[in-house]
């Protein structure tokens, strides 16, 4: 059970291809000598005349103040990139949170808080991509883009060509892919996450469908010679080490080989012949569920570790020289219909962004956190007042109140949301936490035990939460805490929930 002590925190990551990660971005922004100008949070300053478009497509909600054509083309590109990721990795093996995407044209970029703008510029400068940010929590992933649809291309030679404009030339970043794979529970093997992420990063759309091109990992210094000479000597890790090791920080060469061979293994499994993919996904599933051994591997692939190592070695010259074909077509652009956003939709998107950005502000601009919290609280309260029937805004308000430390107000708001039927896991878990805290506050230290009714009150919320979002780790942690404060032994149902927690968050592999 010890492995699930770490909650899935809010992540702030670049969405578009970016060679540097969020930590570096944050560091870059912190190192800037410019004084931080205190402005209200993101988006709340959009003037009343801004015309927002809204659309929801297969779990992705898009709010845009760009023109209709730009919004549609951007959304098509974004959804196509997601679809390509989904073609590579079946739903079972990735996190699938609802997504919120906000687009703002560059001419309105001054509406963005300076701090957020600086983070976006840092991402843009490091990746050459359009300014953007993404914040994620377990239940929602939100992305924010500044789109300059008037800049078609920065390269003079490309002007006038039929190539897509710059703001449409992007795909999902390795950070995005890695986050959705590594947040999946039970956890996938590190080499699977790495191999799938790199295979997607090197993916390309061609006239014959999708493929993964030979990348810097497959053509690393140790393997480059095999592109020209199939007999060139090459180091490969034994399968046992590949499957069990994580990247070794101190051993650059072995770490590089581990990453390259992870990708080689994924490509060999999925693309070398069509007959291996079913066994591969079975191995991915079962190795995440329980400690695995060579027998499982052999039953999935029909060959033992040594035979597979040999097969990878034989496949290497091909993978290092030629693109590996996915046997999947390039997804078609869908017809997307946007409508003028309703007030509730605008308020919801703004409120959620303000809520999610708080954790990033706390990490990167801690001195500004009180201002951001206050502003978020003010705007969420207004939004909740304007949209009395909106359960999701009510839930967001309660969560912001809890983050701001006003637990009494948060409990009232969240109780109201729960009574009205809110099923959002973060709302239920936060309310359960507040109820537990409230009940325990009435007890003496020596006998901090919950009554049967109190236990039932809290567990009812948590049962709903873990059923709707099985991977919400905080829910299980709270569940365990409740049972620790209960005098009676756990019921079979409660034990089943804890067993499920162990399966989802316990250590896998051996």
């Amino acid at each position: 059970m010890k492995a699930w002590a770490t909650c899935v925190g809010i992540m702030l990551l670049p969405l578009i291809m970016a060679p540097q990660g969020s930590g570096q971005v944050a560091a870059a922004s912190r190192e800037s000598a410019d004084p931080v100008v205190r402005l209200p949070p993101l988006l709340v300053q959009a003037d009343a005349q801004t015309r927002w478009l809204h659309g929801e497509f297969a779990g992705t909600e898009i709010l845009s103040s760009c023109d209709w054509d730009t919004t549609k083309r951007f959304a098509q590109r974004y959804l196509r990139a997601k679809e390509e990721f989904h073609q590579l990795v079946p739903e079972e093996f990735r996190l699938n949170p609802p997504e919120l995407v906000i687009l703002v044209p560059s001419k309105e970029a001054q509406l963005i808080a300076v701090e957020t703008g600086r983070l976006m510029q840092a991402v843009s400068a490091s990746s050459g991509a359009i300014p953007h940010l993404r914040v994620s929590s377990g239940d929602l992933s939100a992305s924010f883009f500044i789109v300059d649809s008037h800049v078609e291309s920065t390269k003079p030679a490309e002007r006038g060509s039929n190539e897509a404009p710059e703001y449409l030339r992007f795909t999902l970043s390795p950070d995005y892919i890695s986050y959705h794979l590594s947040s999946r529970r039970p956890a996938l093997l590190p080499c699977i996450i790495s191999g799938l992420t790199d295979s997607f990063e090197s993916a390309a759309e061609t006239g014959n469908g999708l493929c993964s091109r030979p990348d810097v990992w497959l053509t690393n210094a140790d393997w480059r010679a095999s592109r020209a000479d199939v007999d060139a000597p090459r180091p490969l890790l034994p399968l046992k080490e590949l499957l069990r090791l994580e990247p070794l920080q101190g051993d650059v060469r072995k770490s590089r080989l581990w990453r390259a061979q992870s990708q080689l293994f994924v490509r060999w499994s999925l693309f070398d012949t069509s007959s291996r993919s079913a066994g591969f996904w079975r191995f991915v599933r079962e190795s995440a569920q329980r400690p695995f051994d060579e027998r499982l591997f052999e039953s999935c692939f029909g060959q033992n570790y040594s035979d597979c190592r040999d097969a990878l070695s034989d496949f290497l010259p091909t993978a290092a020289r030629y693109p590996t074909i996915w046997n999947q077509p390039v997804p078609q652009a869908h017809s997307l219909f946007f409508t003028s956003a309703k007030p509730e939709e605008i308020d919801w998107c703004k409120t959620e962004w303000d809520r999610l950005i708080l954790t990033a502000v706390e990490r990167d601009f801690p001195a500004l956190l009180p201002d951001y919290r206050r502003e978020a609280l003010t705007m969420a309260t207004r939004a909740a007042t304007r949209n009395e029937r909106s359960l999701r805004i009510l839930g967001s308000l309660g969560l912001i109140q809890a983050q701001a430390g006003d637990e009494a107000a948060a409990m009232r708001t969240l109780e109201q949301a729960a009574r009205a039927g809110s099923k959002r896991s973060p709302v239920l878990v936060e309310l359960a936490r507040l109820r537990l805290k409230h009940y325990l506050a009435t007890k003496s230290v020596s006998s901090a035990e919950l009554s049967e009714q109190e236990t039932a009150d809290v567990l009812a919320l948590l049962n709903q939460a873990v059923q709707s979002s099985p991977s919400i780790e905080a829910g299980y942690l709270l569940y365990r805490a409740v049972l620790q404060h209960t005098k009676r032994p756990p019921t079979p149902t409660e034990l089943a929930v804890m067993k499920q927690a162990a399966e989802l968050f316990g250590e896998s592999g051996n």
Partner: protein
Amino acid sequence: MSLARGFVCWVVSISMRSTVMAAASVSGSAWHCDAPALSPDGLRVAYVQWDSPFVRIVVVNLAEPGRTNYFRLGKSGIDPVTISWRTPLSIELRRGDAVVATFMADSTSLPSGQLSESRRPSLPPLDESKLMPLLQQKLPHRTLSLVNSDDAGTRVLLFAAGARDGGRFFVYDRTEDLLFEVARRKSSPTQP
């Protein structure tokens, strides 16, 4: 001095081909290899490779994998030969006690002594009884046999039999804990 035995025939000519791209045009899978020998500095492996009626000596460079060199020997009947390294850069080909050829393995590569020196200090002496179980873990389901090692005892050349093909030769670097695959032996070699 590193020695390995193989079966090569009458040496007609020796010509060095410095050949990254030329090698690509030769399918490695069609060739059979034998008599490998690790150089004294552990940086190169030389072995005999043939596909009837042609025979050649291959010298792979572990420090620079793209610098494999091929020495064409021509064609003729079967005679046992040994490959031995006189120095880290020169190879002797013997039939019985007679030296039939001597040549430089790789005159263009960088001096190798520095790498060898850098690996030397931290390792305990090579102990086969401890090494073999370790290698067996890395290559399960294979029958392993050590061929030779470099002078410093940091790298060993081994043969792993039991694969679906005829087996493979590996160099294990004890310092880096890495296995380099250096050659494959086909299961049905076309011997001269």
